[in-house]
């Protein structure tokens, strides 16, 4: 397992590590049932705070990507339980793209009112397509 940290990035280190582990689980690079390094081992390997690594593992476990087996170790979960995480990931990606789009709109001179009008219109179209 490889994790690379960019120090001095505007993305917090905890998020960098979590995102890399998440995408490695989802892409299958880390296969189901594979044992991950312990919190201590990974902390030492990356020279990152032990508590930070622990929180990342806990978060990924809550997303159903990995499983913390007490007294045994941390294992990658099978794809079935990863479905929720997949959704969470795609939502996060959508959020980012949405934010970027809004930012672009602001630069182009759109006001909040313009956005609202646009949103109402887009929602109406989307509903029509669903029917």
């Amino acid at each position, binding site marked *: 397992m490889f994790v690379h*940290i960019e*120090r*001095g*990035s*505007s*993305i*917090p*280190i*905890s998020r960098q590590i979590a995102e890399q582990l998440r995408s490695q689980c989802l892409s299958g690079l880390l296969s189901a049932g594979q044992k991950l390094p312990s919190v*201590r081992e990974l*902390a*030492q390997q*990356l*020279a*990152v*705070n*032990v*508590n*930070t690594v622990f929180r990342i593992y806990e978060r990924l476990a809550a997303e159903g990507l990995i499983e913390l087996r007490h007294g045994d170790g941390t294992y990658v979960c099978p794809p079935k339980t990863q479905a929720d995480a997949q959704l969470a990931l795609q939502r996060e990606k959508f959020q980012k793209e949405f934010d970027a789009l*809004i*930012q672009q*709109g*602001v630069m182009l001179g*759109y*006001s*909040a*009112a313009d*956005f609202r009008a646009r949103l109402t219109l887009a929602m109406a179209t989307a509903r029509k397509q669903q029917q």
Partner: protein
Amino acid sequence: MSDSAISVQHLHKSFGPQVVLQDVTLEVPAGQTVALLGRNGTGKTTMIRALLGLLPVDSGNLKVAGCNPATESVELRRRVGYLAEDQSMYGWMTAIELCRFLQPFYPHWNTSLADSYLKRFDIPRQVRIERLSKGQSVKLGLAVALAHAPQVVILDDPALGLDPVSRKEFNRDLVEHLQAEGRTVIYSSHLLDEVEAVADQVAILDRGRIVRQGPTESLREDVQRLVISAEIVRQRPAPTGLLDVRRAGEQFEIVIDDAGHFLGELTSQGYAVTASGMTLDDIFEAYVIGRPEKWSDTAIASKA
């Protein structure tokens, strides 16, 4: 975790007319690593020396590893490991001789532990200290500071003068030998990118005051850079937590703590605001050299 391993309350210290520390309050829960950040001459070393009882304080309550530094300094030194900035050691001694020299001062000195640190830190035993590299002598300082298995470790700018590889090794040792063993660590540093990876909490010291203390991760979420229109600046008083204001034409770039609060307020009023995250370096800079007063200057100028 609820007990503080280090507790500082309303600490004041002046050297003659010069006030060095003003009303400094800091709690470090047991088992946490706290980085003390500040520019040169902001009182970091003074604070560390006060924690160790090396310096009398004017007023305030201090408790380190359960001891009062002013009255129980001998017991405190048994419980605390300390590495000074530019720690001086007798250059003519070898690492082994230094260990033998220090051992009688510490009833809890653990010879085999000292030995294993020398081994793990790759410190030559029979070479005179004056011949060791900077990195080796910092590590030797750390090894002897840890050889009595202290509960609390205080390091004054340990990474100063180390090359990038040694710094990373040093951070790794900090994580492996101190955090993983549940010790409480307070250390001062200028290297903010590295602090982020290692510290549970940061405390920013500026002109003798702690201007911000908080968990490293939440600090990065709370402090953000926003781009807002000049209209907002003219219409309302400066928001709380404002740290820096810069102007570019009709746009203002501000840095603000507790950004979520102000962002929520602006979006509920229908303003479009762009927010972006910042590095720890940027956050530190905003805290120590930010110019929040520019907000009211602009508001006043527009009214005139």
